[in-house]
């Protein structure tokens, strides 16, 4: 295969990370009073739009994953006129489809003591006390309705022989509250939302535009008024006006190049919104998933996740002797180090993801890693196969075992899986208030695209829950409160704001096409990914981040001078799409580094090497950092502005998170 070109970077290391501090955020529309009554009382206080008026209001939804499809379908049911834009060739392709493990809900069908309070507590503790109490409680509250609705849609969840729903346990919880559909829960839930969306299309309430990518958000007199989209087949640029704009465009894990995200997942929509004034919250909070198939070569285009559910029955270990090259099956029991079970006896292999990922890194750094690169640990099913038999294990994980074998050529039935952490999910995202609205009136962000509910670490089976909570049960209520004020606004694309946004978009496309350099977009993206992974990944330090900041800036400048994008803007051009997305990852990458640098504490996924306990656990600093860092774009090349939203804990007491 062709040699991967590495791009030489001059060693210029003066730390240039800087930011300015703006006013704190004091208004987030979170209700006060009893936690259990907050959402109900808030709903009752929201403005309503009468059915005959809903027909006059146009809502633009960008993205049709779990959050976008469920929101668009529900808004269509309510009677709003909805336009959905997806860059895929069908709304069913969104990356939610790849979620494997399950969806949490506080149903307590197991009679094991689950409750809304417990799901709330586990989620806020799992997030290392860096999320809002009001939001997380609401999430736990509506989780119950999600399962009801999905079953009514015909989603074939796993069932017991009596015909009732089955559940299983997941990381960070001591209860069995995770509903699942074999290893394809995300697929089934997305297809449910997709089908609901198609029903609204058939009824004429929703129009879905395939192969259309958002390239800018139009903000006029401080309000979101529409979007600029590009038809990916013809290259045409269109202006689209709406009374409100909902971004449901997912996370930005692909900034790292190698991640478990689908290849097309990107940050362009939220980044363009950020450049138009929307605050970006906690950009450095990136979840690194402990159980992924390790990288095997430079040609690799993505990393494949092995569901966290595998840790229910799989045991994680490394040989007790560093560098032990024996086949895993021939290493006797007493020479195996089950380090998670040893370090965290009460949660064992089911510690939260950030802890499991860091532990894997730690044992590999200590030289205990296995496999050709020494950057992997074993995930072993032999005990579970002995205990339950092959049939039961096949029922639970059959498709995952097959997928592992296809990719690696090794069978998990015979030999333990080799796994290593990989970038998986981004807790950070656009800042939103309790109504899921950004600081730009009329601009909403839902699902992974917002920052709201997971704090500094997301628990397994909570992403599906949040996406559907936002789309089915929160946004349809809260958006009406804003739309009620827009009834007499006449939408028009014939404004200076639209003209400017369109012009800037055309110029950006022209600029990247006319560079005609010598390096491909992927070469730059790989390089960016490596810088971010090394310095802003599993562990971060002030010196590493400073160095990375200059490197990213340097690389970004080179990108605009040396990138080669073939073809034109007036045709189907996948390299042009990629170039525009990667150019946004550069700017976002810088902000991620600034955020990681500024937060001088460790919490959840964010481990600053300077701030850890003797045992290598995260050392939080609640006195100084119990806030959401919401960053404002200050202009090209200018230091971003930090707005702090203080986190108040009235009902739970932030404690040192212990899973021992």
């Amino acid at each position, binding site marked *: *295969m*062709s040699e991967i070109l590495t791009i030489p970077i001059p060693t210029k290391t003066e730390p240039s990370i800087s930011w300015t501090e703006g006013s704190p955020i004091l208004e987030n529309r979170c209700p006060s009073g009893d936690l259990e009554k907050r959402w109900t009382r808030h709903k009752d206080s929201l403005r309503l739009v009468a059915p005959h008026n809903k027909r006059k209001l146009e809502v633009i939804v960008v993205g049709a994953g779990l959050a976008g499809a469920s929101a668009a379908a*529900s808004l269509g*049911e309510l009677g709003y006129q909805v336009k959905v834009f997806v860059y*895929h*060739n*069908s*709304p*069913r*392709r969104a*990356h939610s*489809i*790849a979620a494997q493990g399950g969806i949490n809900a506080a*149903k307590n069908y197991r009679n094991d003591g689950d409750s809304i309070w417990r799901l709330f507590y586990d989620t806020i503790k799992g997030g290392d006390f860096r999320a809002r109490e009001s939001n997380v409680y609401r999430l736990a509250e509506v989780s119950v309705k999600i399962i*009801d*609705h*999905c*079953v*009514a*849609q*015909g*989603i*074939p*969840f*796993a*069932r*017991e022989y*009596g015909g009732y*729903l089955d559940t299983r346990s997941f990381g960070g919880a001591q209860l069995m509250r995770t509903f699942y*559909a*074999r290893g394809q829960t995300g*697929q*089934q839930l997305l297809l449910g939302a997709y089908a*609901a969306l*198609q029903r609204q*299309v*058939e009824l004429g309430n929703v129009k879905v535009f395939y192969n259309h990518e958002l390239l800018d958000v139009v903000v006029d007199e401080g309000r979101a008024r529409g979007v600029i989209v590009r038809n990916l*087949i013809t290259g045409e640029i269109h202006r689209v006006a709406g009374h409100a704009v909902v971004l449901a465009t997912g996370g930005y894990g692909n900034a790292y190049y190698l991640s478990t995200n*689908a*290849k097309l997942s990107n940050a362009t929509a939220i980044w363009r919104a950020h450049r138009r004034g929307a605050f970006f919250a906690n950009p450095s909070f990136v979840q690194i998933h402990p159980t992924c198939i390790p990288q*095997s*070569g430079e*040609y690799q*285009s993505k990393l*494949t*996740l092995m569901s966290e559910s595998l840790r229910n029955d799989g045991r994680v270990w490394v040989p007790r002797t560093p560098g032990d090259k024996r086949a895993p099956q021939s290493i006797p029991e007493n020479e195996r180090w089950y380090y998670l079970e040893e370090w965290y006896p009460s949660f064992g292999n089911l510690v939260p993801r950030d802890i499991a990922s860091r532990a894997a890194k730690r044992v590999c750094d200590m030289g205990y890693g296995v496999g050709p690169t020494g950057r992997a640990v074993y995930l072993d099913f032999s005990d579970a196969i002995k205990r339950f038999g092959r049939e039961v294990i096949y029922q639970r994980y059959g498709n995952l075992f097959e997928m592992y074998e*296809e*990719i690696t*050529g090794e069978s998990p039935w015979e030999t333990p899986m080799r796994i290593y952490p990989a970038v998986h999910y981004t807790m950070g995202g656009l800042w939103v208030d309790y109504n899921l609205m950004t600081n730009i009136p009329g601009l909403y962000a839902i699902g992974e695209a917002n920052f709201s509910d997971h704090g500094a670490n997301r628990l397994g089976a909570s992403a599906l829950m949040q996406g559907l909570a936002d789309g089915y049960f929160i946004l*349809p209520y809260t958006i009406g409160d804003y739309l009620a004020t827009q009834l007499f606004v006449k939408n028009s694309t014939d404004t200076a704001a639209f003209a400017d946004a369109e012009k800037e978009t055309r110029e950006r496309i022209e600029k990247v096409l006319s560079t005609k350099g*010598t390096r*491909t977009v*992927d*070469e730059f993206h790989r390089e960016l990914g490596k810088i971010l992974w090394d310095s802003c990944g599993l562990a971060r330090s002030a010196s590493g981040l400073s160095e990375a900041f200059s490197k990213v800036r340097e690389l970004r400048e080179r990108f605009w001078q040396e990138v*080669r994008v*073939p073809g034109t803007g007036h*045709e*189907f051009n*996948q*390299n042009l799409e990629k170039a525009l997305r990667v150019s946004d990852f550069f700017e976002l990458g810088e902000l991620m580094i600034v955020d990681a640098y500024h937060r001088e504490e460790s919490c959840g996924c964010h481990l600053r090497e300077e701030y850890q306990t003797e045992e290598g656990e995260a050392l939080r600093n609640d006195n100084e950092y119990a806030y959401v860092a919401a960053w404002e774009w200050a202009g090209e090349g200018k230091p971003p502005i930090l707005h702090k939203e203080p986190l108040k804990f009235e009902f739970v007491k932030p404690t040192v998170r212990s899973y021992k």
Partner: protein
Amino acid sequence: MRFTLRIWRQKNAQDQGRFETYEVDGISPDASFLEMLDVLNEKLIHEGKDPVAFDHDCREGICGSCGLFINGRAHGPLPNITTCRLYMRHFKDGDTITIEPFRAKPFPIIKDLVVDRSALDRIIQKGGYISVNTGSAPDANSIPVPKPAADRAFDYATCIGCGACVAACKNASAMLFTAAKVSHLAMLPQGQPERRQRVKRMVAQMDIEGFGHCSNTGACAVECPAKIPLAAIAQLQRDFIWANLTPDPQIK
């Protein structure tokens, strides 16, 4: 590993299209088929040529985006697998590999190996759902579903909408795709109220889109990455006859 690739190149829907031949070398046997094409495209860009357009996204076999017709078979030489889950170790060093788009009248070519499969979405629009509005559902456990029925519903529900069944069929029939959705919902109590209408309307749309008829050769099920069983088609046929020939008991 080294390969000679014969790839279908077509600038746009209007262009006539033709095969062009490319060489790639130094491919790892552990690289996926799409990663091999990535390597080719990087090379083409460096040579100042137009890279090959192909659909892809999740690269783990679930999104249904990728779909190449490789050496005369949908998704390549292995049965029941997507193109992204095909690895180069399944080819011989020095092989010549012919790569085409999924060909069917209802799947117009957009560019090179990319086709428009929105016809499948329009079939779903005609009833591939249960009409329930958000907020109106009863408690999830209020209607028990026998496990065998739920398991079969799941088997049918796993369709990824890639269109390999259409590409593999000599009649370009979308029967397996349509049958998967009809059968999934037919297994569940929630799917019963709309069962008759669903099968009639979805089959009618299949015809409108220009998909051919099913002649039960089973080529679709051999290629289907989701392993949708042929039994789905039998289920659809039964439902279709029942819906058309028997009076609807719901209408008194």
